[in-house]
């Protein structure tokens, strides 16, 4: 049962609904029926003499009306009518209003008969009289439905609108982050600093590293603007990146690239593997004092390319660094391309984490479905 705040009225009324009341529901319900009762009183006083039996009848009438709507609410909630499409809902609601009108009318007639009071059945035009009464009662319930469903429609619409705004804002933000963080600046400056150290220690290696860094920068400045690059190009960049990280981590970082030779020419969105490898190091290897292994595997299946980045470490909760990093990385992947499917993050055994996803490959154009 929901713990939402109950309305003021619910403390006075016996509670027979298994659904929580909306905070305006009970007050609207009581005020509505009371208002109707008052209007009836006024009309009766204006048109004919008010007698005590008729006063009781009117009170009975409106109390029964109230009960009918309460039971109806129970029914429509159990059938989840609020979740229906508009047309389906409209049909049901109109029929329900007529049925409720009929029930209400029958209960009125029964009361009048039992109380020995005058009713329309003695009249010449009994059928016409009942038909017009049924029309009246149905209109009252229709109005009830209009208010009830109208309110919920309005609320749902407002919520949907709000959600839409929120979503748009978060997508914008994520896009900006994704664009800004294509190559982590921390990594660039650390690499430059390491190369500076290497110049004294091993000038030959320093020269190689400068080349790796310039290729990596060129790729991120130029190629990442393109829609697609070949897997071979992306892997080349991942290698430059891993080479540069090896001078930071030295023997703490080992890596293996197992690339399906068939997949080398496939076109993929740029940076997709790079993001995961960067993540594997930042949130995986860098937290392990003894270091670890990063492994990139690709498998070419007929309609899609499967990519997998495995690193040492464990994914515990989404609160820890590894989980959070992978979560961010998968958000960035989703932004990069709509063709990226089935992003999956999980532990392999006790000491490794895998991030997997697949890229749907465009089908070759055939003359039949072009």
């Amino acid at each position, binding site marked *: 049962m929901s713990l939402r705040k109950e309305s003021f009225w619910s403390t006075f009324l016996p509670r027979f609904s298994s659904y929580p009341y909306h905070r305006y529901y009970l007050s609207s319900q009581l005020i509505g029926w009371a208002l109707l009762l008052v209007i009836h009183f006024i009309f009766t006083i204006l048109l004919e003499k008010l007698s005590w039996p008729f006063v009781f009848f009117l009170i009975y009438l409106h109390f029964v009306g109230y009960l009918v709507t309460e039971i109806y609410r129970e029914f429509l909630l159990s059938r989840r009518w609020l979740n229906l499409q508009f047309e389906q809902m409209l049909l049901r609601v109109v029929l329900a209003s007529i049925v409720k009108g009929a029930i209400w009318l029958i209960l009125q007639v029964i009361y009048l008969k039992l109380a020995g009071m005058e009713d329309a059945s003695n009249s010449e035009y009994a059928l016409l009289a009942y038909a017009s009464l049924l029309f009246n009662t149905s209109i009252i319930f229709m109005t009830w439905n209009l208010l009830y469903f109208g309110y919920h429609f309005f609320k749902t619409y407002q919520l949907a609108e709000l959600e839409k705004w929120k979503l748009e804002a978060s997508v914008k933000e994520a896009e900006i982050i994704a664009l800004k963080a294509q190559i982590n*600046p*921390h990594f660039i400056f650390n690499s430059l600093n390491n190369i500076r*150290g290497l110049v004294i220690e091993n000038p030959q290696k320093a020269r190689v590293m400068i080349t790796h860094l310039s290729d990596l920068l060129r790729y991120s400045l130029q190629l990442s603007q393109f829609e697609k690059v070949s897997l071979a190009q992306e892997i080349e960049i991942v290698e430059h990146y891993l080479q540069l990280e090896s001078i*930071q981590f030295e023997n703490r970082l080992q890596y293996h690239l197992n690339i399906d030779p068939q997949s080398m020419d496939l076109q993929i969105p740029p940076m997709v593997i790079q993001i995961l490898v960067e993540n594997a190091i930042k949130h995986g290897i860098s937290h392990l*004092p003894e270091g670890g292994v990063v492994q990139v595997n690709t498998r070419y299946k007929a309609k899609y390319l499967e990519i997998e980045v495995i690193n040492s470490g464990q994914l515990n909760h989404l609160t820890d660094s590894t989980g959070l990093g992978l979560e961010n990385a998968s958000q960035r992947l989703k932004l990069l391309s709509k063709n990226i499917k089935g992003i999956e993050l999980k532990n392999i055994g006790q000491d490794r984490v895998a991030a997997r996803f697949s890229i749907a490959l465009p089908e070759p154009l055939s003359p039949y479905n072009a």
Partner: protein
Amino acid sequence: MTSILVDDSRLARNELRHLLESYPEIEVVAEAAHAQEAKAQIEKKHPDLLFLDIQMPGKDGFQLLEELDHTPYVIFTTAYDQYALRAFETSALDYLLKPIRDERLKAAIERVHQKNQVNQVDLAPSSEFMRLDQQVFVKDGDQCWFVKLNDIRLFEINGKQTRIYFASHAPLIHRTLHYLETRLDEAHFFRANRQQIINLAWIDRIVPWFSGGLKVFLKEGGEEIEISRRQASRFKDLLSF
């Protein structure tokens, strides 16, 4: 002056060591690749100066400092870290961007020398209690401080943490009041009640309070501290000659 280099990259440490060759007065006594190793080395060698990288595997540089009871002079080194840079700028800490420029290093070392001359701090460890001229590192959001123990006028319990009051700041530190009580010299710090420890040097005036207790007003912040009856007699003994 002894120093320890803390950076997870060996090449970066080498590079810094190379730069420091031009400053013979700075002697590098140890290197550390992560916070844990650094902590052990600092507690063993008690350096005067620390060159500290912020981003390291496991605990970062700030977290390392927060764990130390007593911090040496610190020059932060960082490659690029917008959050850390903000902390440096708001808190006026000394930092160097990697790759490090020689002029910047020279200026930073000169500042350390100046501070050292003014303070004449004897950085050798004290045996039991923390000394009044010792500095501790405190971080509260973007703001960080190196605070001298004697500048702290009040320690106040806050769950498992302690709020310290100095100048116009009142950040939290990750220490229990009970732990601090064991590390603070009773000649200078007094446990006024279950919640608070006061620095005797910061007392402004004392008035008698209900049921045999006392009320103490502190200088500068004007905090009002109640001393329970039980503690009040101890307090009077402490202050009487």
